[in-house]
């Protein structure tokens, strides 16, 4: 029997080890797997490499994970935030490393990691300083850079609905990095507002097939990072 449900966020992230790589879904405040990230803060793993488009908002979620000193490196496209100085402070203090990647290249590298494509050529970033040191090649007279796949030990993502097999639906623009991060991690952990029996989701509309998912935690009424930041919430 296939049953990917685990009882709690704490149990779902218990095995994340120091120094591992963790993809964290979300774009801005939409789709942040807040409860999973807070469980990771409670759990205490450190020296993590986090792959995430942004670097957190306010004093919760990823921003709090960074503030707690658990993140050694961020791979992302836009770590600036108008509502948080956590990343900026830690970065200026030299206590976190940053690999800056154009947003579409970040997405494509993650998708490649999940699809068994070790490297691909892209025009994005060619002839800019983000191409420095990268292999370049012309196609049809246009310069391209060779970009390598990104994979992770863990992916933490948020879905709107799941079933026991790990099939997922997302909500609007909270989908963002969820489906591709689910593909690219050794162990994908999902928090979903509802978790039904197989057959509860229409097979035509499944956005992430269960084969990409390892653990599902039901968080029936998830906090919205948007609301927590607006309220000035602080974790822990």
């Amino acid at each position: 029997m296939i049953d990917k449900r685990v009882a709690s966020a704490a149990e779902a992230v218990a095995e994340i080890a120091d120094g591992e790589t963790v993809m964290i879904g979300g774009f801005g405040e939409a789709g942040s797997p807040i409860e999973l990230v807070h469980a990771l803060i409670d759990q205490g793993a450190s020296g993590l490499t986090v792959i995430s488009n942004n670097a957190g908002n306010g004093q919760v979620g990823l921003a709090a994970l960074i503030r707690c000193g658990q993140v050694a490196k961020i791979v992302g496209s836009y770590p600036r935030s108008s509502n948080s100085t956590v990343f900026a402070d830690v970065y200026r203090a030299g206590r976190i490393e940053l690999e800056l990647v154009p947003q579409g290249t970040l997405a494509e590298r993650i998708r490649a990691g999940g699809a068994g494509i070790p490297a691909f050529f892209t025009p994005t970033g060619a002839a800019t300083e983000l191409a420095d040191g990268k292999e370049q090649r012309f196609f049809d007279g246009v310069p391209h850079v060779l970009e390598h796949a990104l994979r992770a030990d863990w992916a933490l993502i948020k879905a709107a609905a799941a079933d026991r097999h790990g099939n997922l639906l997302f909500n609007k623009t909270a989908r963002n990095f969820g489906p591709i991060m689910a593909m690219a991690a050794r162990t994908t952990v999902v928090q979903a507002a509802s978790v039904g029996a197989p057959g509860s989701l229409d097979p035509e509309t499944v956005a992430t097939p269960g084969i990409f998912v390892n653990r599902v935690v039901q968080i029936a009424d998830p906090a919205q990072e948007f609301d927590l930041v607006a309220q000035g919430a602080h974790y822990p």
Partner: protein
Amino acid sequence: MSTPPPGLTRDQIAERAAQDIADGSYVNLGIGMPELIAQYVPEGREIVLHTENGLLGMGPAPAPDAVDPELINAGKKPVTANPGASYFHHADSFAMVRGGHLDLCVLGAMEVASNGDLANWSTGQSDAIPAVGGAMDLVSGVRVVRVMTTHCTRDGTPKLVEKCSYPLTGAGVVSRVYTDLAVVDVTPQGFAVMEIAPGWSFDEVAARTDAPLRDARPGVVA
């Protein structure tokens, strides 16, 4: 020379930029000033807005009591979805961008060079937090890349230059620039002024531009 009147307002620049968007276009509007353009699409034209975080068919901001924190644009502001919209993940979203499926994007700029180079992501200052987002993807993939910006920075430094001093977002990508003072095309011969704001002269615009300008206004013999 006499002091010219104020240039176009942000809304007026947006209105001007919107007039050049053809009916049926798929368009990405950069964060900040270019977002205003959506409000000025001329009556009778249907355009589809793409926001790179995963929505095609973006609508205007919702009423305050209808905000969904999981329905936002690339600038992380709440939006709505129009009839005919679709949601998708980031790799699919940037396949649209990189694959040349968008007709047009209008971006902000820190500098535009007369060869079409664009700098809009980094001042290169060592204490700044580096952040690039989707700008490099947009300029390398979207068929037509235009810029909407003030002609000069707040301290009066021209943004239209012979060569960008800031790190590039893309090389040779911009085809047209809308500013508070003029509409300027990037041509093989450099900047060409197509229109000038009311009350301004070509020389006054040229004095605020840090690259050679050609007067290509219809009816004007340069």
